[in-house]
C-alpha cells in the first residue's frame, strides 16, 4: 500500500498501534550473528512448534529479531510484556519456557541470568549488569521489531522523523539541526556530520549522491552489521532525511559481501519502503524524489576509505585518491557525494525526533551522543554495547564487560581497528571520546574494543596489525606499500629473536614517514598500533630483543615446551595428540618431549590435565 502524505503515515501508525495488544505475550528470539552461530534458529523453530502444539498460535507472537548485544550468553530470548531475559537456550529448554512462563506466568529460574556480585537471579533484561549501565538509543530497538516487517518499525515511531522533516522543515533547517547536534562520523575519522552535509549541499551540481558505508572492514567490529540486520529501516530513514537536506535524488548502500543477512534485510527494507511510498518519486507527497541502490563490497579493507569506496562503486579497483578535492565537491562519478557510515545514518532520526539540544546533552564537550562498541577479546561479557560518549574504559570493560576471564590480569585494550592503538592499564580511567582516544595515540575508529590480558604479546599484536595492513594496502603509494612491508620484516625479526635495539629507532623513523607521506588514512594511521605498543610496552620489545624471550609466551620462536616429570602421570594424551611425534614415553611413566622435533603447536600444553607441560 502506498502512503501518499505525511498525515496518512501518521494515520497508518495509529491504525497499526490500535491493532496491537500490548499485553499479548511475545517471544523475541535474538537472530544476531553470535546467536545465529549458536543455532538460535533451531530454538526459534522449537518455539513455533511448541506454541502450535499447545494451540496458542493466535495468542502468542514469536519474533526473530536482530542482535540484542549480549552475544556471550546466546542464544537469547526476551519474553514480552514482562521483558524476561532467558539466556544460553537450547531446543530442550523450549517446552519448559512455554509451559511455565507463557502459560503459568512464572519464570524458569535455571535459565535466568545470575548476578554474581549481588548473588541473585535477575529476571528482566534491564536488571542484568551488562545492560544496566548502557544507553541503548540505537541498539535498543532491535529486540522490539522484526527487521522484515516495516509495520513493526512504524509502530515504534519509525519514519516519524521523516514525517517531521517533510511536513515542515526546510532542508537548511535540517542541516542546521544536524550541525547543532554535534554528531561526528561513526565510521572512523569523526568528521562533523552536519558540516559534511552542508558542504555537499553547497557544492555545484545537479546530481548529488548520498552513500551509506556498510563495508565494515575493521576486524573485531560488527556494530554496523547488527544495525543493518536488526533495524535496516532506521538507516533508510536517516538516508532519506539526508537526501532531502542535501538535495540528492540518488543513493547507494555499499554492503560487505560477507554479511549475507545484512544484504538480504536492507534489500527487503528498500523494497518495502518503495511499496510504501517512502522511496521513489514524490515521497509522502512532498515532491522529494529519492531512490537507493545496493552494491556489494569486494572484501577490501581500504574501501572503508571514502574515495576508494567510490572508485569501487564505479566498478574500479578500490584505490583512494588524494583528497585536496573533497568528495563533497567531486566524489562518485565526479559529482558531489556525501558518505556516512551505518551507525551515523541510524542516529539521524533520533536527532530529528528529539532535537539537537537533547542530543548534544548526551556525551562530552567534543563528542556527542552514544557510541556502539564491540567488546571482544579476553573479556567475560563479549558483545555489542552502547554507551554515552565519555564513559571510562574501566566502566565499559569491568562494569559492563565483567572484567577478564580466568582471573587473568588486564593488560591493554585496543581501539580503532588497524588504525588505532593499544591503551595500557595505567589509562583505564580514560573517558572514551574521539579526542581523548587520539590524545593517547589510539582512535575511535568504528568502535572495536579488543581487550587483551597478560597472555597477549604486544609485539605480536603490532605485527598482526602490520601484516593485516600490508595485505590490505592497495599499493598505490610508495610509503604505505613499501613502508608496511619493511616494518613487517623488522617486527618479524624481533618476534623471531633476530631483533636489534637499533630496529626500534628504525621503526620510529618509518612510522613518521608513513604518517606524513601516505596518500590516504590507511597508511597515515598504520603506524598507530606499533607506536602505541612501543610507547606503552617498550619493555616487551626489549625482552624480545635483549633476552630473546616473549614474556607472554606467544612468539613461537622464543618459547620452548618441556614435560615436568614430577607432574606427568604418563596418561599418554599428549603423545597421542602431538602432530610431530615429538613426545615419547611408556604408559604410566613420565613422558619426554624432544625439543628438536617439537613444532611448538601448543597442543600438548592445551590437552594436559596435570599441568605437566611447561611453556617458557
Amino acid at each position, binding site marked *: 500500500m502506498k502512503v501518499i502524505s505525511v498525515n496518512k503515515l501518521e494515520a497508518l501508525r495509529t491504525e497499526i498501534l490500535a491493532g496491537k495488544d500490548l499485553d499479548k505475550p511475545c517471544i523475541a528470539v535474538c537472530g544476531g550473528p553470535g546467536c545465529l552461530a549458536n543455532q538460535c534458529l533451531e530454538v526459534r523453530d522449537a518455539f513455533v512448534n511448541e506454541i502450535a502444539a499447545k494451540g496458542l498460535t493466535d495468542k502468542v507472537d514469536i519474533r526473530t529479531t536482530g542482535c540484542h548485544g549480549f552475544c556471550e550468553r*546466546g542464544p537469547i530470548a526476551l519474553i514480552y510484556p514482562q521483558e524476561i531475559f532467558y539466556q544460553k537456550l537450547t531446543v530442550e529448554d523450549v517446552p519448559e519456557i512455554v509451559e511455565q512462563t507463557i502459560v503459568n506466568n512464572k519464570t524458569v529460574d535455571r535459565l535466568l541470568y545470575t548476578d554474581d556480585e549481588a548473588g541473585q537471579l535477575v529476571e528482566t533484561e534491564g536488571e542484568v549488569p551488562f545492560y544496566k549501565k548502557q544507553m541503548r538509543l540505537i541498539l535498543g530497538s532491535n529486540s522490539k521489531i522484526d527487521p522484515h516487517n516495516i509495520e513493526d518499525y512504524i509502530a515504534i515511531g519509525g519514519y516519524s522523523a521523516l514525517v517531521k522533516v517533510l511536513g515542515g522543515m526546510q532542508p537548511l533547517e535540517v542541516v542546521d539541526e544536524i550541525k547543532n547536534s554535534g554528531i561526528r562520523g561513526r565510521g572512523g575519522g569523526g568528521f562533523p556530520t552536519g558540516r559534511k552535509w552542508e558542504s555537499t549541499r553547497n557544492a555545484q551540481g545537479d546530481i548529488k549522491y548520498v552513500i551509506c558505508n556498510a563495508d565494515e572492514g575493521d576486524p573485531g*567490529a560488527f556494530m554496523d552489521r547488527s544495525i543493518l540486520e536488526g533495524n535496516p529501516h532506521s538507516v533508510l530513514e536517516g538516508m532519506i532525511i539526508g537526501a532531502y537536506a542535501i538535495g540528492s535524488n540518488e543513493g547507494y548502500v555499499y554492503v560487505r559481501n560477507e554479511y549475507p543477512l545484512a544484504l538480504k534485510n536492507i534489500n527487503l527494507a528498500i523494497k518495502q519502503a518503495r511499496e510504501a511510498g517512502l522511496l521513489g518519486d514524490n515521497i509522502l507527497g512532498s515532491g522529494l524524489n529519492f531512490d537507493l541502490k545496493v*552494491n556489494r563490497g569486494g*572484501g577490501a579493507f581500504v574501501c572503508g576509505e571514502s574515495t576508494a569506496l567510490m572508485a569501487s562503486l564505479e566498478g574500479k579497483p578500490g584505490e583512494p585518491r588524494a583528497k585536496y578535492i573533497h568528495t563533497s565537491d567531486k566524489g562518485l562519478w565526479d559529482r558531489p557525494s556525501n558518505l556516512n557510515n551505518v551507525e551515523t545514518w541510524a542516529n539521524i532520526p533520533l536527532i530529528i525526533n528529539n532535537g539537537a539540544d537533547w542530543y548534544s546533552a548526551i556525551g562530552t564537550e567534543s563528542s556527542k551522543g552514544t557510541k556502539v562498541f564491540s567488546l571482544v577479546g579476553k573479556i567475560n561479557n563479549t558483545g555489542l554495547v552502547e554507551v554515552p560518549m565519555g564513559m571510562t574504559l574501566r566502566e565499559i570493560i569491568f562494569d559492563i564487560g565483567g572484567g577478564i576471564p580466568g582471573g587473568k590480569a588486564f593488560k591493554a585494550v585496543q581501539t580503532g581497528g588497524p588504525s588505532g592503538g593499544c591503551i595500557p592499564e595505567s589509562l583505564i580511567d580514560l573517558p572514551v571520546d574521539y579526542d581523548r582516544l587520539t590524545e593517547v595515540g589510539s582512535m575511535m575508529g568504528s568502535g572495536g574494543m579488543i581487550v587483551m590480558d597478560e597472555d*597477549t604479546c604486544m609485539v605480536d599484536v603490532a605485527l598482526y596489525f602490520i601484516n593485516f595492513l600490508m595485505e590490505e594496502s592497495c599499493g598505490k603509494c610508495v610509503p604505505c606499500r613499501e613502508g608496511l612491508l619493511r616494518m613487517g620484516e623488522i617486527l618479524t625479526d624481533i618476534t623471531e629473536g633476530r631483533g636489534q635495539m637499533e630496529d626500534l629507532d628504525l621503526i620510529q623513523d618509518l612510522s613518521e614517514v608513513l604518517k606524513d607521506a601516505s596518500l590516504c588514512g590507511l597508511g597515515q594511521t598504520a603506524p598507530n598500533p606499533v607506536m602505541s605498543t612501543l610507547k606503552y610496552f617498550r619493555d616487551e620489545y626489549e625482552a624480545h630483543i635483549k633476552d630473546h624471550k616473549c614474556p607472554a609466551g606467544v612468539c613461537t620462536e622464543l618459547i620452548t615446551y618441556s614435560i615436568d616429570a614430577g607432574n606427568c602421570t604418563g596418561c599418554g594424551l599428549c603423545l597421542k595428540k602431538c602432530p610431530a611425534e615429538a613426545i615419547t614415553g611408556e604408559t604410566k611413566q613420565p613422558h619426554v618431549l624432544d625439543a628438536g622435533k617439537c613444532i611448538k603447536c601448543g*597442543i600438548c600444553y592445551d590437552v594436559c590435565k596435570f599441568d605437566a607441560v611447561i611453556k617458557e
Partner: protein
Amino acid sequence: MTTNESKLDSIIDEYNAEPGSLISILQDIQAEYNYLPEESLEHVAKRLDIPRVQVFGVATFFKTFSLKPKGKQQIHVCMGTACHVRGSKKVLEELERKLEIKAGDTTQDGEYTLETVNCVGACALGPVVVENEEYHGQMTPIKVESLLNSK
C-alpha cells in the same frame, strides 16, 4: 569447467551491462562457477565495453574473487583481532597440517579449500572457523580433527 555464454549474458543483462556494476556482475559469476573462469572475464570485458585490464584489475584486487577453482568444502578461518588474541593462528596452522595445504590453496582431490578471512563479525565466539557457511565458535587446534571428521 567451461563457461556458458548465455548464462553469463543473463547475469550481465540483469545489470544492464553497466560498467559501474562490474563488481556485482563478477560476484554473481563467481557464485555460479565457484571461481572466475578466465574466459568469463574476457566475455564481461567485451559485453561491458571496457578494457580487459580493468576487469582483470578488479578481479585480482578484491579478496572476494578467485581465479582458481575452489574445493567442494570451503573452510574459512577468521583472522580478526578478537580471534587472533584468542589463538586463531594456532587453529589455522593445525588445519594446514591436517589438510596438508597452505591457506589459500585447495587439496589435490578438490575436496577442501582453506582460506583466511579478516573478520566474519562473530567476534564474541572467537576463534571462529566457518565451514560451508556454518559457524564453529571457540575453536582450538584440538577441535580441528573432529571438525574435519564430521564431514
